[in-house]
């Protein structure tokens, strides 16, 4: 889409590009929305340590930007309404639902997806533990489960198996691999606790 020549539009785009300066629209006096509302805008996302420049509509969610624009299809679309957790990614180390996050709202944060957890060929300990404990069947929820578990460990509130179940409840597994998911998370947690007492 070619950039608009409309001065308000240009100011708006520059405002967003500048990372938070809201120009142009604030001065609008007309009650009517502009006819070209919702046009693609430039944004810079940091995904798994890499800066990616995109030109997409503000209504594109982070999940759709990852999957459809950046072709990082590890993050899955289950419900698309924040109810299943398959889309879970980390922003600045905190687990969030990427289906309810606008891509443009994530600009400026460090996004980590399932593709960013392994170091080269070396799996993240949680990835390895999910394989060891057979913590999935179909695998569709697994990227979200693992990203969620990374967030859970960083939060540090889950001690018992019951805590893990409660604090992993934002990730639904329709194959019912829950017992093995809890075992995988607990093994990695306990190993981490031994290494960093």
């Amino acid at each position: 889409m070619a950039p608009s020549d409309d001065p308000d539009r240009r100011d708006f785009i520059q405002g967003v590009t500048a990372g938070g300066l809201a120009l142009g629209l604030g001065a609008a006096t007309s009650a009517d929305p502009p006819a070209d509302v919702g046009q693609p805008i430039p944004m810079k996302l940091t995904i798994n340590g890499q800066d990616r420049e995109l030109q997409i509509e503000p209504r594109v969610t982070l999940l759709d930007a990852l999957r459809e624009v950046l072709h990082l299809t590890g993050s899955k679309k289950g419900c698309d309404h924040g109810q299943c957790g398959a889309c879970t990614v980390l922003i600045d180390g905190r687990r969030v639902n990427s289906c309810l996050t606008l891509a443009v709202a994530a600009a400026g944060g460090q996004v980590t997806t399932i593709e960013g957890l392994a170091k080269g060929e070396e799996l993240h300990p949680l990835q390895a533990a999910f394989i060891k404990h057979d913590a999935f069947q179909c695998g569709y929820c697994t990227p979200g489960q693992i990203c969620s578990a990374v967030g859970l460990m960083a939060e540090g509130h889950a001690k018992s198996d019951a805590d893990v179940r409660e604090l992993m409840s934002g990730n639904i597994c329709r194959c019912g691999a829950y017992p093995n998911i809890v075992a995988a998370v607990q093994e990695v947690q306990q190993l981490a606790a031994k290494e960093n007492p």
Partner: protein
Amino acid sequence: MTPFDYVRADGPDAAVKQVVARPTAAFLGGGTGLIDLMKLYAERHDLLVDVSRLPMDKVEATEKGVRIGANVRNSDLAYHAAIRTRFPVLSEALLSGASPQLRNMATVGGNLMQRTRCPYFRDGHSACNKRVPKSGCAALDGVNRGHAVLGTSDHCIATHPSDLCVALAILDATVRTTGPKGERTIPFADFHRLPGDTPDRETALDHGELITAVDLPALPWATRSHYLKVRDRASYEFALTSAAVALEIADGVIKQARIALGGVGTKPWRAAEAEKALVGKKPTPEAFAAAGDAALAGAVPRQHNAFKIPLAKRTVARALAAAAAMPG
């Protein structure tokens, strides 16, 4: 979602101006409610003004009370040391809601603006006076198992979904805002409106008025407070019934009681009559059962939700018993 523009506000005043300038603009906080509803076409906005990075993200605890910035995330508030020790009911309510991911995203201001889970509101096309004024209410004679029994009207029986707000209702909270008419404070009891014949108007806020903080006064008795939530599954579900309670007990007698209900009201439901019924009584199961009866005295069931009335009475009684058993 229908197309919309996006701006990141560089201050509360700028954000207010940007939303005021467009009648269908909205503030964007964590997005957990707003983006969901926009995907369902239950809400349409042509401009979202992102306020989520404004520096209203502190929890300031002093002897006089606690000021909670509107952008404090639910998870950060729930695990804050001052909240856990001084207002356990607030921490418990937050941790009973949604999922860890959603709690990491959702803001306190957004939670106050949370909208109903009524399926006829959310589906974007059924008759719903809240979504389309004067279009009717499909819930009145529809599947209304999840709907409210307190504060309803002939125009709307939608349940208020928040857990946090039920806890705030017993904590003498005030809501601080800035808007087109300047700054003001709103007592929490006046923040949410009853549906009446205008269920589309849910809060006291004007268009473009932004929540900046929630204030809690110091409440020494709030250390003995508790939130109990009853739902269809053990986690990650909205309340069928819930109760936020606090008790001040001295010399074996209740000096002061606070009770609010969730899952049963069209707004966070403070049960003042039930509170009065407990003052001067001994903390016994009989007194707590009577408080539960008093809290639901005005309840009006529909076809599928009558079960909520006895369930809510027992929820109140059990929450009070648990609070009474806490160290004071």
